């Protein structure tokens, strides 16, 4: 409680990375890399959501990209229906997706482990079908708002009209997302989640309302996914249903495990693998499907040797280099 605002070494590193991303990265990037890093930032936020559910509660959610789609759909819908500024659309999309996450939690909470994963995967499949059938609003008439031909414009935040400024904006939002998770972790919900992961019976015996806190976790994953989808909509101006297939949700989860679900570094590694690696292969003129082979190898590597993911291994390596830090962390 007294340590609510205490910044750990890892926290400083995270703030430093965000500062680099906001202050320096945009000016180093050409338009190709600006768009790659922007969508990486959006997926980083979404990955933070799945990684959080897995690390804090051991829950496997395979709907995260579907939730991004929900957030993106709502943001586009609001943009083309009303004159709200971007921030309002973003906030409403994130909130609505959070509520969607709660609804998803209702059937999912009765399940554990593999069954929970299957239920969330079914939800992702359902969303995939809905997105493929109705497409994303682009300024057309009616509830679904789809018109053929070129779509209407999407209003970006007034402080982030340019591609560079928008990258900064997305990174700042991702940072807020990580801070939101960390704040929860240090407060009552974090303690409740830690005990729930240890044993649900022990949590109940300690007066923890297990259903409430699990639902809450689904809501946070939804909030982050929804915000990520709205930001992605802002980046591209329109959304394509191919982005939000159920298989992408599975991929995101697998990469979160490969990267390391327990740390922000892991989420960053996962987002980089998901977005930067294919972009690099693309520049080299290599078939981007090679990235799937690399993901697969990474997953095997993680399952066999690195339960804390690649980030965990890197951090262990760093710790071995500086024995003093280990003593301080203990």
């Amino acid at each position, binding site marked *: 409680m007294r340590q609510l605002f205490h910044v750990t070494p890892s926290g400083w590193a995270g703030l430093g990375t965000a500062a680099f991303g906001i202050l320096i990265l945009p000016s180093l990037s050409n338009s190709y890399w600006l768009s790659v890093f922007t969508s990486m930032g959006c997926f980083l936020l979404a990955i933070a959501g799945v990684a959080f559910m897995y690390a804090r509660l051991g829950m496997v959610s395979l709907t995260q990209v579907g939730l991004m789609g929900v957030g993106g759909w709502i943001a586009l819908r609001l943009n083309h229906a009303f004159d709200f500024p971007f921030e309002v659309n973003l906030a409403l999309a994130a909130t609505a997706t959070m509520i969607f996450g709660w609804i998803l939690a209702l059937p999912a909470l009765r399940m554990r482990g593999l069954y929970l994963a299957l239920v969330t995967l079914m939800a992702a499949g359902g969303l995939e079908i809905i997105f493929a059938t109705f497409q994303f609003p682009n300024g057309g008439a009616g509830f679904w708002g789809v018109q053929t031909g070129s779509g209407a414009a999407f209003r970006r935040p007034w402080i982030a009209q340019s591609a560079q400024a928008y990258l900064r904006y997305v990174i700042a939002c991702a940072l807020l997302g990580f801070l939101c998770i960390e704040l929860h972790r240090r407060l009552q919900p974090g303690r*409740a989640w830690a005990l729930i992961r240890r044993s649900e019976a022990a949590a109940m015996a300690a007066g923890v309302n297990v259903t409430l806190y699990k639902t809450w976790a689904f809501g946070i994953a939804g909030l982050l996914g929804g915000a990520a989808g709205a930001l992605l909509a802002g980046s591209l101006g329109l959304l394509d249903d191919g982005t939000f297939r159920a298989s992408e949700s599975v991929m995101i989860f697998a990469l979160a495990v490969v990267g390391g679900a327990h740390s922000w570094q892991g989420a960053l590694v996962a987002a980089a693998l998901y977005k930067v690696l294919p972009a690099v292969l693309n520049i080299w003129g290599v078939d981007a499907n090679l990235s799937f082979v690399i993901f697969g190898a990474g997953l095997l590597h993680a399952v066999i040797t690195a339960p804390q993911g690649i980030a965990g291994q890197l951090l262990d390596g760093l710790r071995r280099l500086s024995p003093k830090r280990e003593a301080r962390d203990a």
Partner: protein
Amino acid sequence: MLEIEDVTVRFGGVVALSAVSVRFDKPVNGIIGPNGAGKTTLMNVLSGFVRPASGRVSGDGEALLPLAPHRRAHWGLRRSFQKEEIADDLTVFENVLVQIDHSRSPARSKTAEVEAMLALVGMADRAGKIGAALSGFERRLTDVAKCLVGRPRLVMFDEPAGGMSVDESRQLGALIRQIHGATGAQVLVIDHDVELIRTICEDTLVLDFGRRIAFGPTAEVLDDPRVKAAYLGTEEV
């Protein structure tokens, strides 16, 4: 005061508890019985993890069975498990704080209470230690502190001295004796260690194959020939 009336529990064909009635009104009470006698099942009925086929339970005159498990904790029920349940990634302090997180009292008074109870169990100097770094005995002491915060009314221990050295077990026994004085809560202890039960419990219930075979002052109960036959008999096999 804890009243258990006519509680029956079945798991498929196994009758784990058979119409057990007992009224605990002493500060510290024991439950003993051979393996599989139904001791843990009785505790699970009290904490709400097992729903009995029939029966009533009331604590201080309030019916407990209709309450969800976490509501019983809010009511004042505390329990420790056969295997202590301390979260590895929380500190000792946080592990205890979880128990009163739901209460609306100000943060400062919660902190003070957690610190007081950690001092009582002798863990005050290790409040910032992370759960994963604790020894078995330290985990058990943290568990006890967790049972003491938030005005408990009934504290239950399931084989608290399991796997402990004679010395640790004695220390734990002394600590359990202090609970009633420090918090006003009634205490219920399950253990196979008859010496522990003899030294700390006023009244003791003996279960065998899910039935109550004796109840009363601990010394009398332990001298009861039926108890010797059922309990000590299997113990020596």
